[in-house]
């Protein structure tokens, strides 16, 4: 569990992060969202002390991070950034092995871990182990960057706009992969983004920041239906609100008994997908794979705040 208590950072008399407190449960994925200059990146960087807090505390599993030497703290916290920051003079395997090597893992264990992570990120170890970073595509480099951050099995992973440099198609895939890997490993993850859609798609909880202050910290559905401030509502965007709400639930959640015409939709598809399918094919109900149907009326009811 990560507890952030009254964290403040002042630059030249101006607070960039102003008295922020929030708690992130073990295994949760929290997204810090806000416009540029909102203080979200500074808040993230204070967690592994790349930025020294002016006041306040960060507790990881009950231990105040200020009591540890900064470099030892950082070896326990994974960190992945936009533009990946891979070391250009080191191979993919050497990049991924960075923190395990610092921690003095035996050679065989490091090699096994590198191959395990490459396989986890769908990069063939034999092909990619000895490549140099400049020989990777943007999506591959991004995956290696995240693999490097996860190498020493950190309990906490911090990500600063990790998908910012990827084109939309690759980004959607990378987001889905990250979510799957995070759930599989049970890693607590804090991710910074300026993209509300990304926050809604990924986050168990979303922290909305503006002008250094935390405006709202809640589950995505509540952020969408009960924005705590006008700024939060603006960030969501009034026209996208119902669609974002629909993207939070899957067809499986809404399936009811019945019969419907046409091709079936998989139960793990989002309600957003189901709505699109209804509109596109002119149907009022869709059969769900494995039984049941999802109706347009039910979708309509889900797209409104309750």
């Amino acid at each position, binding site marked *: 569990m990560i507890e952030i208590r009254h964290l403040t950072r002042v630059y030249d008399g101006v607070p960039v992060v102003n008295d922020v407190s929030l708690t992130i449960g073990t295994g949760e994925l929290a997204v810090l969202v806000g416009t540029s200059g909102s203080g979200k990146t500074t808040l993230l960087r204070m967690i592994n002390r790349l930025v020294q807090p002016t006041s306040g505390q960060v507790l990881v599993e009950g231990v105040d991070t200020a009591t540890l030497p900064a470099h*030892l703290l950082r070896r326990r916290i994974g*960190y992945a950034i936009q533009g990946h920051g891979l070391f250009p003079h080191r191979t993919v395997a050497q990049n991924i092995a960075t923190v395990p090597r610092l921690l003095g893992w035996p050679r065989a264990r490091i090699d096994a871990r590198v191959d395990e992570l490459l396989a986890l990120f769908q990069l063939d170890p034999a092909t990619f182990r000895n490549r140099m970073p400049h020989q990777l595509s943007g999506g591959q480099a991004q995956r290696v960057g995240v693999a490097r951050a996860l190498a020493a099995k950190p309990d906490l992973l911090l990500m600063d706009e990790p998908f910012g440099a990827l084109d939309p198609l690759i980004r959607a895939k990378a987001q889905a992969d990250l979510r799957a890997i995070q759930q599989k490993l049970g890693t607590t993850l804090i991710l910074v983004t300026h993209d509300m859609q990304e926050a809604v798609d990924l986050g168990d909880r979303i922290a909305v920041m503006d002008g250094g202050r935390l405006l709202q910290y809640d589950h995505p559905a509540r952020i969408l239906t009960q924005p705590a401030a006008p700024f939060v509502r603006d960030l969501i965007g009034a026209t996208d609100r119902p669609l974002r709400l629909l993207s939070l639930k899957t067809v499986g959640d809404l399936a009811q008994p019945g019969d419907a015409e046409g091709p079936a939709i998989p139960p793990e598809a989002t309600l957003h997908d189901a709505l699109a399918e209804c509109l596109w094919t002119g149907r009022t109900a869709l059969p769900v794979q494995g039984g049941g149907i999802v109706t347009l009326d039910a979708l309509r009811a889900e797209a409104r705040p309750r």
Partner: protein
Amino acid sequence: MIRRILPALAGLALLAFLISPGSFAPLFQPFTRNNAPAIYTQTSLLSLTLSHLAIVALAVAASTVAGLVLAILVTRGAGREFLPLARTVTAVGQTFPPVAVLALAVPVLGFGTGPTLVALFLYGLLPVFENALAGLSNQPAPVAEAARAMGLTPRQRLWQIDLPLALPLLLAGMRLTAVISLGTATIGSTVAARTLGEVIIAGLLSSNTAFVLQGGLVVGILAVLIHHAFQAAEVRARRRMGLD
């Protein structure tokens, strides 16, 4: 292809000349007058060349160590304040004429190799220092950030990230210093250092153009070869990082 063959041929020609200078006498004969000797034989050209190279290597090594250490000191922590001072010192080293350094150093160090080493060391400091400085300070921000965030200590960052990334530029600085020193070392012979300048000075004193020419040619070809070797090392280092 031609970029490899030409230096190889030049190197072979130089080697042949140094091993058996006598066989090249007909080539240099047209540049002599009054039946003066065409080839310098006072001292073995091979031993002069080796001594010349040793002096240059020593001076370049000293400039590199000093320039690099200075660049490291002024790019971290409290050392940053001394950056303007370091720039001034190395620039003065470059602008102060080596001949004047020789003249000033002889009373202190006596005749011989010492004053030449001092002159070359000061003269070669600037290119190494400026290039090392550029290499250490112009690193990609995400790489520097990642290194810090992974938990590398400042010392580990220096050895494992900063220095390897600065290597191509450092090699370029060493190349400049080596080529400059190779030519400048010839003046060391005015204060009795054993360099190829001896051949050139003997030619000047006896109005023997052949001597001047062979001294100059040996130095020139050496400079081209060394320039080439450093450049090849730079290209390798840059390719590894995907810079070319």
